[in-house]
């Protein structure tokens, strides 16, 4: 590792993305990808300032209940129905360094597997006290945490009998716009993970395992909530220690 002092903002270009680790665009087992996958080769580009930079959000924008999905949509004195869990972890980069001040947004179905959305047609009940969205910002150690209920699995129109394993959607910003990432977290021990066409869009089994959060017994809150730990890795920057400088720069 080429750790430098953390005092200067990093401005180096990012490691190239290992696209064999991610799902390819075209994955016919996940039918919607068939008409939504670019067919031409991507144009490979070294990062310019437009990609190395990115928006960074302040802790001030986060409301008190933003990371509490049990209460952030509930009527006063009430709470969402379901198994109470805490999801926590760290956002790191590929060099293993903590990434602070990262906006992490999450959304999920309720305990019965139903989303609060006009186009949602699953017959499971709506929970009047559950909205399904939350957000937080990582601290100086890259750590984040939120409280929610464990989402239910749900059926979806793809194959004749396809079900999504229980999952939480994550949207993560880094410090550069090319670190932008959306993914999904799954729960340790769920046999449905390995049957899901969206999961199986990822070719490498160990890459899938990177999306499965283990139960974190040590951080379980007695008589209150179980904990799951989900670490997230964003693209890392190349070291710029010995980067060639052009004349006059």
């Amino acid at each position, binding site marked *: 590792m080429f750790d430098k002092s953390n005092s200067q903002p*990093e*401005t180096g270009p990012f*490691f*190239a*993305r*290992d696209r064999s*680790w*991610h*799902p390819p665009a075209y994955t016919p087992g996940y039918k919607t*990808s*068939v*008409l*939504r*996958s*670019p067919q*031409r080769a*991507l*144009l*490979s*580009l070294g*990062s*310019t*300032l*437009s*990609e*190395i*930079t*990115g*928006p960074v959000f302040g802790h001030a*924008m986060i*409301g008190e209940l*933003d990371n509490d999905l049990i209460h*952030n949509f509930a009527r006063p004195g009430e709470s969402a129905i379901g198994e109470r869990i805490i999801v926590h972890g760290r956002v*790191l980069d*590929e*060099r293993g360094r903590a990434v602070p001040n990262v906006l992490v*947004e999450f*959304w999920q179905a309720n305990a019965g597997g139903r*989303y*609060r*959305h006009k*186009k949602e047609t699953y017959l499971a009940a709506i929970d009047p006290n559950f*909205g*399904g*969205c939350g*957000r937080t910002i990582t601290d100086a150690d890259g750590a984040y945490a939120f409280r929610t209920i464990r989402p239910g699995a749900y059926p979806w129109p793809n194959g004749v009998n396809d079900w999504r394993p229980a999952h939480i959607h994550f*949207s993560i910003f880094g410090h550069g*716009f*090319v670190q*932008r990432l*959306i*993914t999904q977290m799954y729960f340790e021990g769920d046999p449905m993970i390995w049957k899901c066409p969206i999961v199986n*869009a*990822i070719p490498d089994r160990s*890459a899938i395992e*990177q*999306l499965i959060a283990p139960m974190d017994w040590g951080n379980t809150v007695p008589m209150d909530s179980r904990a799951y730990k989900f670490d997230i*890795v*964003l693209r890392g920057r190349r070291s710029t220690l010995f980067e060639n400088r*052009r004349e006059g720069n």
Partner: protein
Amino acid sequence: MAQSLGYLKETPSQTAGPYVHIGLTPNFCDITGVYPQDLGTALVNERTQGERIVITGRVFDGAGAPLKDAVVEIWQADAAGLYNSPSETRGSADPHFAGWGRGPADAVTGEFRFETIKPGRVPYPDGRPMAPHVTLWIVARGINIGLHTRLYFPDEAQANAADPVLARIEHRDRVSTLIATGTAPHYVFDIHLQGPQETVFFDI
């Protein structure tokens, strides 16, 4: 055996799914009272410097149908060509312009909309100026990993012709997929995921 490099693997991407609006723009899809407003919906205020413009567009699938469950995010420089980012070392960007916007596709028409300013020019790593451009990132159900592209302006023909990134496009008839249509102040940028007009997407 050599030492391990010790690098971690990037977390693999998964599709944003059909309900990405719940997570990213809850007020837009009627989940109110959680956040005061959706992030990224207002880019400018009355003190922002620069020429006001509007960008609208739609994302089309391979059958020519507009996506109604997409989210498009934009990232751009301020009017002086500076990014409002800790990684910007050339100066301080306009404090009244965040440079980042988030546009949910309309549930009926699929249109996204940004009220922003025309960005200034930003240098390429070798120092040559790039033409004014806006960086875009597109996610939706059926998109397994977010797509990066750029919008250039139709009234910047000279700058576009000298742009080092546009110059990298081998099939010259595809350059036009990155150039908005319309005229100031209203530009239209349609994104085609497939087909003869498939937008040039970047691996950056």
